[in-house]
Each structure stands twice: as structure tokens, then as C-alpha cells.
């Protein structure tokens, strides 16, 4: 079926196009004037002004591992985050928790947990998928290094960045 494109009849002012050019010029000069007089505040002059003190709650910075208030590392090396990570930045080697340990009920923990920050895209899928609430994206955004090896965060670094988090669900409660 033939489809006829509707072409509206233009007024004579629209046909010569110059009045709309002038109207457009007025709009852009208004933007220019507002920026010059300081009325529009859209730009944060970065090194001088930072927003570290008032970042939004949901801001996705670098991923870190947390310990809970009993001092246990929450990660159980289920490797769900490794499988869901889109650029495959996470590498986990699991190991068995020895039977003498206080937390032997948990059975599994990561021997090595490495996140390659060069690959990480800060998407937050690892935080979403973790069943243990072990990996969280903190507010740290300026991750830099001078070598590629420096940019691979290993387990110690991740726990150091993550620290302790309170108020999480205690799934492995020994009383149950």
C-alpha cells in the first residue's frame, strides 16, 4: 500500500526560513548569556570542586568485598559474580574451610579473589547477583595505577577497600 508522507503547507515566513534562523539565534544567545552570567550552574570544575562528600546513595564505584561484624569474610566462593560479570573481570579460586575452623559450617571460601579493575565496567551486576551480600560497590571512582599489575585488585586489597559492613542478613547463624 502506498503511504503518502504528509507535507504540511508552510507559511511564507517558514518558507523563507530566515525568521526561524533568527529565532534560533536568540535561543542560543540566551544560553550563552546565561552561562557567562553564571545563572546556569551545570559544570563542576573537577579538581577544585569534588562531590565526594555528597554523592548519591546509589552511586556505583569500585567493587569491594566486606566482612561482617563477627569478622567472617562473607564471600563463599560460589562464583556467581564471576559468571555474571560481563567483561569477565573477576577470577575466583575456591577452597575448603578446614573442619577445625569456627565457621566450618560454611564449607567454602575463596583462596584467591581477583578483580581486574581495567576490565571492570562498574555495572553492579556482581553486587545484585551475590546471594551472600558479600560484594558491594563503594563510592570510590578514581581508580588509577601506573602498571597493569597494580590494577588487578586481589583479595587482600578488596577486603581492605570494603571494610566491615553492619546490618546484613546473617544466613549462617550457628543457632539455627
Amino acid at each position, binding site marked *: 500500500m502506498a503511504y503518502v508522507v504528509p507535507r504540511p503547507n508552510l507559511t511564507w515566513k517558514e518558507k523563507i526560513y*530566515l525568521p526561524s*534562523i533568527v529565532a*534560533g*539565534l536568540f535561543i542560543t*544567545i540566551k*544560553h*550563552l548569556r546565561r*552561562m557567562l552570567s553564571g545563572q546556569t550552574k551545570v*559544570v563542576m570544575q573537577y579538581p577544585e570542586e569534588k562531590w565526594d562528600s555528597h554523592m548519591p546513595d546509589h552511586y556505583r564505584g569500585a567493587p569491594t568485598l566486606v566482612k561482617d561484624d563477627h569478622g567472617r569474610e562473607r564471600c563463599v566462593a560460589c562464583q556467581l559474580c564471576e559468571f555474571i560479570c560481563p567483561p569477565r573481570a573477576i577470577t575466583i579460586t575456591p577452597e575448603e574451610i578446614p573442619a577445625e575452623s569456627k565457621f566450618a559450617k560454611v564449607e567454602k571460601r575463596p583462596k584467591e579473589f581477583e578483580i581486574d579493575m581495567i576490565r571492570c565496567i562498574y555495572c553492579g551486576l556482581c553486587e545484585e547477583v551475590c546471594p551472600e551480600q558479600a560484594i558491594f560497590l563503594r563510592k570510590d571512582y578514581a581508580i588509577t595505577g601506573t602498571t597493569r599489575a597494580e590494577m588487578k585488585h586481589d583479595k587482600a586489597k578488596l577486603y581492605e577497600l570494603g571494610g566491615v559492613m553492619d546490618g546484613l542478613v546473617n544466613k549462617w547463624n550457628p543457632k539455627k
Partner: protein
Amino acid sequence: MDFISSIPWELIAWSLGKTIFLIFIVVLPMVSYTVYAERRVSALIQDRVGPNRTGMPITLLGAKKDWQPFSLGGLGQPIADAVKFLLKEDFVPGHVNTIYFWMAPCLAMMPALITLAAIPFGSELAGDKMVVANINVGLLFMFAISSIGVFGIVLAGWSSNSKYPFLGSIRSTSQMISYELSMGLSAVPILLICGSTSLGHIIDYQGDHGWLLVPFMKEGLPGVREILLWIPVLIAFITFSISMFAETNRLPFDLPESEQELVAGYHTEYSSMKFALFFLGEYTAMIAGSALVVVLFLGGWHFPGLPDGAGNGGLPFLHIVPAWIWGVADILVFFGKVALLLFIFIWVRWTLPRFRYDQLMKLGWLYLFEIALVNIFLTAGILAFTK
């Protein structure tokens, strides 16, 4: 021996020195700062801030941080850009037609520089006329040389041997050729009014009879003739400016290098210095075009009330100051007007969307050409009837 001593070495050295001085110390900084102005003004229009923090690039010499003793406000950015262009890898792809590939950037930059030579940018300074080449047929010279600018783009697109540059250069060629007609024809009413193609004489005429576009800029009130002539001059100004936008490939006639459609158009395959030549050539053409509009329509270096460089004219009480100050003032007035027009170029670029190819060709051949032609007859009629 006689042959060697008969060569005018002094003249050659002096001319070479003048040329190098003018190109590297006058034109190139002007062009680089036009680029900087474009980045800043376009940023402010888009509600952001352009480059506003650039230090002197001493990290190249091994320092820890670039040196910025006080806030330059980003004025060092063109220097950083120039250093970047010099140090970048100049990559020539294997599939290009080598001779034309190397020739094209030169052909793009050269006509713009040569046209700048014929424009009087001031009145006089210590007896020397402020124009590099005081050509009798200045206006014709400008149009002839700017037509050569098409070759740079054609050769760039053809020699790049690749889809997008080819399309960009084809579009640009047809666009530039179409709008050259309207550009030339819209300048003809000016020639009819001023009676001379020499740019210096056109400015002198405007000094006596008021600027063509603003007939009030002179001593005394404009006569009936000037007021009546203002109508065809306004039409000529509009068509000339639109053609000038098309000639310099600026938006809204941006098809040859339309960033969203053609990667980078005809200069896709170029890197480092060759790209810099295209880029600077475009801005030099913009400066030459603005300077031409200022000379033809806005009275050149003339400002009502200021005497010229030889101390003639102007308000009587200003003659106590030595004449060379007015020479310098005239140069500043000229560059001020050019800067205003460059601002308008940048302002229009970030306001209007691009024309579609068929709309562009229709505008050039059906509308502007006819309007410019009718305008010539209109001017001639008014000139004849208001004798």
C-alpha cells in the same frame, strides 16, 4: 659572477622575511585562537565550559606537571594543540594515491592564505599602506583564488580511495561550485555602487558615503540615494553571507565533513600535520571570508569619527594625537569587526541543523542565484533613477 650579483638578494630576503612573519606570526596565531574561540563559544552555547585550564606543556621536557603560574583561562590550549599536531604520527594508508594525497592539504590551505594577502586590514601606518598586495582588481582576485580551494577537497577525497571521503568530497565539490555563482553575483551591486573593484577604493567610498550596510556611519545624514540603495545592499549582504557559509563548508552547509554521517568526510584518512593543514585551512578561509564581508559591507577599517592613518578626516579635536595612533586604531577596528563576524559564524554553526543535499543544491541554483541576479538589476535601476 655578474649573474649572481644581479640577483636582488636583498629584495628576496626581505620578501621572504615578510611572508614568513605574516604567515607564522600573524595569520597562524589568529587561526589558532579562532579555533580556541570556537571551542569556548560553542561550549558556552551548549551549557558547558570549554577548555579553561591549560598550562605550558613542559611535561614534554620531563617536568611533573604542566606549568601554570596564574590561571590563563585556557589560552594556552592552541599552543598545546600545535605541539600535539607536530608530534603525532603521520600515517599514510597503503591504499592511497600518494601524489594527490600529499598535494591535497597544501591545496586546501594555500588559497585561503593567498586571499588574505589582498585585503586591506588598516589604513596607513607611517606612510605604508596596510595591505600586503594592493591589487587593482582585488575583488576579482579574491573570487578567482578562492575557487582554487575546491581542488584541495576534490583531491583529498579522490586520493583517499575510500567510501566516506569520496562521498564527502563529491558533495563538497558540487556545493562549492554552486555557491560561487551566487557569491560573485551578490558582490556585483557593490561594484556598481562603488565603481571600482579595488578593495581599498571600496573602503574609501564607504568612508565618504557611510558603510553600505549601515548608511548612518558617516558625518551628516545619509541622502535619499543611500537609503534607497540600502534595500539591494541588504539583499546582497544576506545572499553573500549565505554563499560565504557554503564556500567555507560551515554549517548549515556542513555536508562535506558532516560528522554524524560521514565519519569525518573528506579528511577521514588524514592524520597529524596534513589534518592540521585542512583544519587550519578551513578556519583561514573563514577569516578571509569574514574579512571580505567586512570590507564590502561594513566599511573595512573605517569607524565614524576616527581619522585615518595619515591624519585626515575624523572629528577635528582628535587631530592633536599623532597620526600613527589612528593607524593602529584602524587596524584594531578592522580586526574587531572580523572578530564579530567570526563570532556570528560560530553562533550560527551551533544553532542550525544541516541542510539535506537536495535542499542545498535547490537553494543554490534556484533561489540564491535568481535573487542575486535580480538584485543587480534592482541596484542598477535605483542608481539610474536617483542620479
